């Protein structure tokens, strides 16, 4: 059962949802800006957590419950905890921020522009599809997602699992102590 | 090296078996033991209403005794203060006036007798030092209080109740 069914009471629901979308979109941009502009890295991570939470709401608005909850668990619940964990251990604050050289600044600008170009390109490719009306509104539910993942996209799915496995092996290798030479 | 007395016991430490390494049987055993304890007799004593029986050689709060006629036994000789390892006892002696014979047994008596309960270790040496059998540690616990000065017990708290006749 989808939380927001788009079929009934068409126009009123759409307006409500659009208002909600604008609110959440504003919040996610606001908090992601705060991530960049806050001096204390721990604050940055906390704002990033809130940003991920707003993204979770976006997924729910798109009727992709599984993605929403996975975003919630994996990004908010696990990865951000690890980020916070490392930052708390390092105990960084405003004073210990190293001075950045001009080279790093230029590299950052170039990387940001590359991202911008990629995003614009992908939006141009998407331009012909209507963002409001999903063609298959039930696609985000667990059942359909599982069917799609294990039928049409079986090979990419399995390949990505191999990728994760290799990453895991690499992490274990890095973390393993060198045997001491006596 | 060989042990000379041969009384040394060597404890053999075997590697743990699989069942032991799983710990779950041991945890279950422990849980069973603690569960059994739920039904055992409770050891709690509800203190103010119920008191633990005290032993025969219990030493509690000091009391200054009176003789069979109700006169104070203490003669302020200071032996208890001298014997006290914690320096808890002080006193001021005074001479018995005429007309006070029914109050004090000897011609000399303790006008002030103070025990500092924060110093006292309840060893009972004052009891043993006393030649007049005037001090005994036969009272209850020393109660709690708020100020240090309130722990210096004077004669008002230490002397036995006068005889009723």
């Amino acid at each position, binding site marked *: 059962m989808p939380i927001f069914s788009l079929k009934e009471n068409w126009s009123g629901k759409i307006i409500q949802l659009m208002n909600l979308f604008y609110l959440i979109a504003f919040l996610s941009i606001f908090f992601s800006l705060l991530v960049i502009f806050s001096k204390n890295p721990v604050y940055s991570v906390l704002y990033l957590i809130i940003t991920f939470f707003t993204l979770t709401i976006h997924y729910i608005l798109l009727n992709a419950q599984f993605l929403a909850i996975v975003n919630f668990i994996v990004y908010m619940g696990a990865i951000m905890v690890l980020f916070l*964990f490392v930052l708390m251990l390092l105990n960084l604050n405003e004073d210990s921020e190293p001075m950045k050289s001009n080279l790093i600044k230029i590299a950052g600008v170039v990387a940001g522009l590359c991202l911008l170009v990629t995003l614009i390109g992908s939006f141009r490719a998407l331009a012909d599809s209507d963002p409001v009306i999903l063609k298959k509104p039930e696609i985000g539910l667990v059942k359909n997602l599982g069917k799609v993942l294990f039928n049409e996209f079986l090979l990419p799915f399995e390949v990505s699992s191999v990728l994760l496995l290799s990453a895991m092996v690499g992490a274990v290798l890095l973390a393993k102590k060198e045997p001491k030479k006596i | 090296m060989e042990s000379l007395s041969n009384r040394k016991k060597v404890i053999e430490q075997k590697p743990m078996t699989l069942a032991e390494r799983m710990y779950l049987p041991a945890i279950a055993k422990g849980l069973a033991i603690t569960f059994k304890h739920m039904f055992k007799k409770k050891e709690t004593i509800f203190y103010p209403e119920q008191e633990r029986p005290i032993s025969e050689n219990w030493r509690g709060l000091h009391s200054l005794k009176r003789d069979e006629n109700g006169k104070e036994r203490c003669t302020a000789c200071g032996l208890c203060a001298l014997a006290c390892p914690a320096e808890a006892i002080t006193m001021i002696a005074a001479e018995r006036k005429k007309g006070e014979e029914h109050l004090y047994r000897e011609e000399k008596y303790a006008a002030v007798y103070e025990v500092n309960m924060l110093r006292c270790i309840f060893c009972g040496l004052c009891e043993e030092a006393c030649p007049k059998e005037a001090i005994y540690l036969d009272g209850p616990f020393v109660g709690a209080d708020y100020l240090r000065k309130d722990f210096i017990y004077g004669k008002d708290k230490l002397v036995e109740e006068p005889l009723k006749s």
Partner: protein
Amino acid sequence: MELAFVIEKFALVIVIFSVSLGVAAYSTLAERKIAAYLQGRVGPARAGWGGMFQPLADGAKMFFKEEIIPTQSNHFLFIAGPSLALLTALIGSAVIPWGQPLTFGDTVIQLQVADINVGVLYIFGVVSLGVYGVMIGGWASNNKFSLMGAIRAASQNISYEIAMGLSIIALLMVTGSLSLKTIAEQQSGFVNWNVWVQPLGFLIFIICAFAECNRTPFDLPESENELVGGYHTEYSGFKLGAFLFAEYINMFVSGAVMSTLYFGGYNFPFMNNLLEMGVHPNLVTILGILFLLGKIFFFIFFFMWVRWTVPRFRYDQLMNLGWKILIPLSIANIVITGIWIVVKEIYFK
């Protein structure tokens, strides 16, 4: 219809909140009573009959204590920590089906706040969020002990979440649904309880639940003899109370989750026989709620029973158990479950 729906859900939320708060309050008494009984004492017995009003006395004490906020701490996060801990503990019970629907004439009242089709994952997400309260509180205190406690809590929760998730996956392979309502409905009667097909999974789940709730033998984040009080060293008064309360609410919610996932939820033996005999369905539903509460109380008792029996793990033992034993075991459990499902498909059809 919309307004009635909102009112119905709101009332249900209020009831569940007050029940979980009440249960948590009396869990504090139960903890002390059970500890006392296991140690041959009687526990708190002065406030009211058998100490019945002890939780009120404790609560009043917490309220009237001085609220200390360390000057060098981060004030906003210092307050946000316990609030977040309490919040995440409370919202976990939203997807638990407390009973079959009640029917009054035409109106049907669902005894579940939200039947979302990813209910199990929602619980999992809320649990993984729960560590933020502890982490933020511990970090904001600006105290070495608090920070150590917070970091321990974080690493412990992350490690045990993996094993917990894997044990849930094996369960989901059996049930074929992520909705807690469906899972509860599947386990009607007594023989259909999931614990009979997933004993190993249940064992892993309950061990991980101990670790997630920071209960002994995994209470390293607040281990008193190494870290003073762990993450709540600097807390006092009501904020400390919020942290402690969150622990008991977590116990209540995890008890509810375990009974729903593995012990049939509101189902009890001979429930269908009672329905066939013509007992009113609402009565059966209420019996079911009582049975669910009974199961939850048993789990809470079990949590406390273990706490006062098993000593605390050492930190390296905790990590070894999580990563080297529980995770491989739960993966093995998934494989065994898969084989079992296939064998059942082929030979027992």
